[in-house]
């Protein structure tokens, strides 16, 4: 696994928290939103998304509720919790610091600044 893959691997829960901080969503919508917001750079299979969502639910970072208002099947809609918001805030600070230092070391501009929204 390359360094970049390793970095991306560790960022999965944070990406999901970032999306859910915009509002509650079900699994399929999270997948589409991730693809849309990253312009296709981040993508994942359902086989990876759902275990991640269930793990985060067990860790009390998100909370799932059943919505019966649409379609043939009920949808499980996930909502970020207070603990999830705290994790997102600390994660954003860590990643910003990491990205700034990385750019500094690589000799590039401080491109990472301002790219991550505060919540």
């Amino acid at each position, binding site marked *: *696994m390359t360094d970049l*893959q390793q970095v*991306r*691997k*560790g*960022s*999965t*829960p944070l*990406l999901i928290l970032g999306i859910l901080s915009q509002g509650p969503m*079900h*699994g*399929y*919508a999270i*997948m*589409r939103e991730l693809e849309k917001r990253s312009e296709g750079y*981040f*993508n*994942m*299979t*359902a*086989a*990876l998304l*759902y*275990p*991640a969502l*269930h*793990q985060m639910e*067990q860790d009390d970072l998100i909370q799932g509720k059943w919505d019966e208002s649409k*379609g*043939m*099947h*009920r*949808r*499980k809609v996930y909502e970020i919790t207070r603990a999830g918001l705290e994790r997102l805030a600390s994660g954003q600070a860590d990643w910003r610091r990491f990205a700034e230092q990385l750019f500094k070391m690589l000799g590039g501009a401080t491109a990472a600044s301002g790219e991550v929204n505060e919540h």
Partner: protein
Amino acid sequence: MNTEKYLDQLKAELKGFHPEERAALIEEVAAHIEDGLADPQLGNDLPERGQKLEAEMGSPHDLGRGLKEIHRPNRWVDLLLVFVPYEILKYPILIILTLILGGLAQTNSSVFSQPYLMASNRIFFLLYGLLVLIALRRRSLDVLFFWLPQTILTVFALIFREKRWLPESPFNTNMASMFESLFWLILLAGMISWLAYLLWVNRHDVLLIVLALLPFLITFGNMALSQYRSTGNFSGGYQLPDWNFAFIGGFPLGVYQISMLVWPILFYISRHRQMRWLGLLLNATPLALMNIVASMRYPQLVVVWITPVTLVVIGWLIDQSKHTRQPSLIT
């Protein structure tokens, strides 16, 4: 995309879940497929959407395995498969062997007689080997990584207690005995290689790696202790401390016994990873502490007995930094 086939395969993968829990998981995935097939962003017509969605779903096997890793639906069965044979079944077997072989007569090298040791090793090998097969059949790494090291150590004990490489060993009697030695050695090498392969394949899960390696360090510690035992130079003379505070029907109840009862419960039942690490720490620490306190006169023994606890602590630290339960974004 064949929705029905995908969901049927997923249902088969989720065998072991409570029916309600399984139905909820299937429904969540069914809703995902329904959304995908109705989403114009995925394609202009149903076949095109189905094709794209199929690629996005990942295999039912991978999805089922991921969900099983998180929910651990069979954790009670896993606990029983470890707890009952290791903590309970072992004692009736020992008693039966004692009755048959008069096994508790003391010898120079052991509190047990030779026929007793030889028979117990072989019976435990059969029992542990059977549990390895059950773990494989159930695809339970938690159980496999407990019983495979125990089986390896049993064969190791059998080889080193019989000492067939010594000319004076009572087991070097005939050709059949030589072949038997060869059989055990090949089996031992095969099982060690298999464990090494399994550890490599599951190297992302530090918890499992520590579970599998811990018995080796504890056995190594016990072997080191036994080398020094005849000196009688421990804090309790020849006797190692037991930190017992009660005897129930002749059986001791102390720090070690309680830790042996509690650690599998924490490790196998809890869904929280930190509690599972606590279970492993409880497995290693009381015995290590007892032996460290006893062997203060031998720094080398102290170092040997610090290693199991160190392994758990280092494993926990690596696990914290790796976020091992999170899947990769690379599809």
